[in-house]
């Protein structure tokens, strides 16, 4: 997917409905210096403190309190299991587009957006920024989602927790094929640190229904091995297992005050975002 394509899609998703609908709940009051932070890729060059550079021969960036209205971080699952799509669109593509649309929507209303990619370890990280031009950075990062390797959501969330200094919004986009309990424990820690956590659980319909017929050799996408089986023989049992897994995640999110959205890859992005906004508005009331 080219960058231009992703950008267009994100814009077209958001432009149609966003105007006037979302207001940042956080109002910045002043630009007050808070601390230094070592420069990393994506930081604004204008925030480099040249004096500090002169003293320590290292780039330091100034951090400010309430720099923007809202700081949102997109945490994207780039594991092998995401590179699956039974109906044209892979979960990876879907999550990428949804993340891009989300970033565009946030930046458009002046909120800052950052991103973190992961598979079984934290990957590319993009610090949050509210600059309009930051969208290109976000899209660049999203384009680099690998779509391979194992999944370890908890490690990614932990890495994110270490980076976050101020209150914000953590948006996790994943197929959640991981140890749900472990993931949710970390998510709850984030929640306790006054971070709002939103989970977009990206699901392919085939994962729910196992619609295949005939003797099939299933191959794991994350190196789990193979299984030769007649899908009809185990369908009912599989559906029970996967449903129990999803219900478990839903329950954990509900208990941990984490917003949860199960998103089918066939679902329109606008609808997903509208659901998200509607839920937030309802929560604010």
């Amino acid at each position: 997917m080219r960058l231009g394509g992703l950008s267009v899609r994100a814009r077209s998703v958001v432009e149609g409905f966003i105007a006037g609908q979302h207001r940042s709940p956080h109002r910045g009051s002043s630009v007050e210096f808070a601390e230094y932070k070592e420069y990393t890729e994506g930081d604004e060059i204008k925030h480099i403190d040249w004096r500090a550079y002169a003293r320590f021969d290292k780039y330091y960036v100034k951090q400010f309190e309430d720099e923007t209205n809202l700081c949102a971080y997109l945490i994207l699952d780039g594991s092998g299991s995401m590179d699956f799509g039974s109906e044209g669109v892979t979960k990876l593509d879907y999550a990428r587009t949804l993340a891009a649309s989300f970033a565009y929507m946030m930046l458009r209303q002046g909120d800052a957006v950052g991103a973190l990619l992961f598979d079984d370890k934290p990957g590319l990280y993009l610090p949050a920024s509210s600059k309009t031009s930051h969208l290109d950075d976000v899209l660049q990062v999203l384009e680099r989602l690998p779509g391979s390797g194992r999944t370890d959501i908890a490690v990614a969330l932990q890495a994110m927790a270490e980076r976050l200094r101020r209150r914000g919004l953590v948006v996790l986009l994943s197929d959640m094929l991981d140890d749900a309990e472990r993931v949710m424990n970390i998510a709850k820690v984030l929640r306790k640190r006054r971070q709002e956590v939103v989970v977009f659980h990206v699901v392919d319909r085939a994962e729910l229904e196992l619609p295949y017929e005939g003797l099939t050799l299933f191959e794991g996408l994350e190196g789990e091995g193979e299984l030769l089986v007649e899908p009809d023989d185990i369908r009912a049992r599989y559906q029970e297992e996967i449903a129990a897994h999803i219900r478990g995640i839903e329950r954990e999110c509900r208990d941990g005050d984490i917003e949860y959205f199960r998103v089918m890859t066939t679902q329109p992005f606008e609808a997903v975002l509208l659901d998200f906004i509607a839920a937030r508005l309802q929560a604010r009331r």
Partner: protein
Amino acid sequence: MNFLNPLFLAGLAAALLPVVIHLINRRKALRRPFPALSFLLKSQKKLARSLKVRQWLLLAARIAALTLLPLAMARPYLMGEGEDAQSERLPQAVVFVVDDSASMSWGEGEAWRKAQQAVAERVGELRPWDKAALVFASRQPEGSKGGEDGSIPALTDSMGEITQALDEHKPSQRGTDLVGGLRAGWEILSGVEVPRERIILVTDRQKAGLDPREVPPEGFGVPIEVLDVRADADAGAPNLAVVDASYLQKAAGPKPEFEIEVIVQNFGAQDAKGVEVRLSLDGEQLGSTLVDVPAGKTARKTFAHRFERKGLHRAALSLAPGTDQLAADDTFYLPIHLAQKVRVLLVNGDPRLVAYQDETFYLDRALNPGADSGSAILTESVAVEGLASVKLEDFDVVMLLNVEKVPVATVGALRRFVEAGGGLLFSAGDKVVPEAYNALFGELLPKPVRTYKRLTTRDDPDAPVKVARFGQLDHTHPIFKVFHLPGGERIQSVPVYGYVLLEPTPDAASRIVASWSDGAPALVEKRVGEGRAAFLTTTVDRDWTDFPIRTAFLPVMRRLAQHLARRGTSEGEQRWVVGQPVTLDLPDGEEGRYELQGPTGQRIVLAADSAQEQAPRRFVPTEAGHYQVLKASAEPGAAAQPVEELAFAVNMDVAESDLAAISKEELGALLAGQGEDGQPRKDAQGSPLVERPEKRVGVWSLLLFGVTLLLLFETILGTRRSVLLRLWRLLTRQPTEPAL
């Protein structure tokens, strides 16, 4: 197993197809990447066992179906006993000769059920134009008419009658008579004009039921098919039977003691240990005992019983229920007759005109005080001269009272009387001459008489010191047992003025029961044959003693009479067997009708065997048990009264208890008879006369049925679970589970 189309067996190779297809399918399996493989693995792990079983079952069903199909198409068949194809048969006349002897009730009727089933099958194979008859091969009474036993002794084309008659019939308690049954079958077929005749013999092949000497050497001249319904092994079939029982009176008296002996025989090849034998009297079980019976041997056990009342007692000696598989021979019925009265013949050796001087005066009154006394002892007096004309068998005891001599012929009759169980008493007196007595009676005397010894006379003033009295009494003897009790010592005061001395011979058979105070024997007894002889060495009148007027006289003489009386025994009694005629000697000169009541209560009127008015009556018992004869009262409406002395018992033929079998080959050769060449005879076509023809029993239809079942099974098992699940929900109207 044989095949009509063996070429189709090549199709058995198709049985490998499911395996090959399974392997090919495995290779052709579609590879499909799937993200939630861990959940698939988890699901598969939980279902692995049932999936594996299902797959194996499916594979087995497919292989079995593909194996059975070519097998069925090859048209396999088995060779079984039976006829040729029915279409090949011409009209035929068949006589079913069915063994209904007691042994056919083996195993709670298992053999009989097999016989019924076998006949029903054969009847089912007959065509409408065939004819059949039914004969039972158990020992029929002489002169019995065909059909009395439920058989159908004439050919009929109504096959239902045959099966119905057999269904209603039960195994009898009679012995086996295969030859008789076959003869009857042959007679039915003789003169019948049909292309084919044959006898179907249904038997358990009991060896005892077939006497080779009875089989005509030339055979029966009719093809005989043997249907074997034996339910057990040929040799050493386990069976125990009560084969005999007897009784013997051990002691007389108001409550006589009897010994009842039972004989149990083990016909099997294994020793039987701890077999419970029970004694029942008049329907009440009195006791039981355990007996070990070695294989092929008999064992005896004796019950002792003291009867409370005289008259008839119905005994049954039986094995405990469930001891063996043939219950019919586990009980032996034995009537026990206890004489109501002791009949005593007093032979008066010194009759007098003055009553109290008569030799029998005191004794007669002691034994039978009068008609109103109800005494259990009946007396009859006779002079010595009249003794020869008396029928001694009508008496239990004969008392020779101071008898000088009797005719030699009478002595012989007395000896036979005593040897047969009667009792004989000699009492002394002035007529007894020692030498003549010893010469005349010889061995009948307990001890030879030596001499007469006069001690004193009644009017002698010194008599009290000269007399002898009763001295030593044998208190273990039944006569004097009671004198050991308080008051019994008064017998010792009886004075005796004279007695005869007996020779002191060392005769072990003699026993001195009482002695005088001077040591001389007073009463001596001796066993002679089955009976007893006793010698009282003084008089039974007052010539030599005052004993007759003493109170002890009455009990001593009564007990002596009862002790000497003929003992009750079953020896010599006629043993009646089921199926064999019973001849009853009804009392002469009696008027009125006699009836016979069997074990089940059914009564039959006894018919005269001949035109003579009082001829012996005959009847043929059909079941074992106790029978009683009833005499109908002359008065209308009055109940018939049992005649106890005519009661008898009927038991099963012992031969029927031996379940050993004759081999099929031996039976076939025996029934066919021998030709001139010494070989079993054959018919005009050269077929054996005794056959167990084989017929083809097709099994392909069974195999095809199996294939159908397997395919049905495969269809159900092979159908997709989701389809079955939907079908199930549709049938049970269950709602589909809500989606996530």
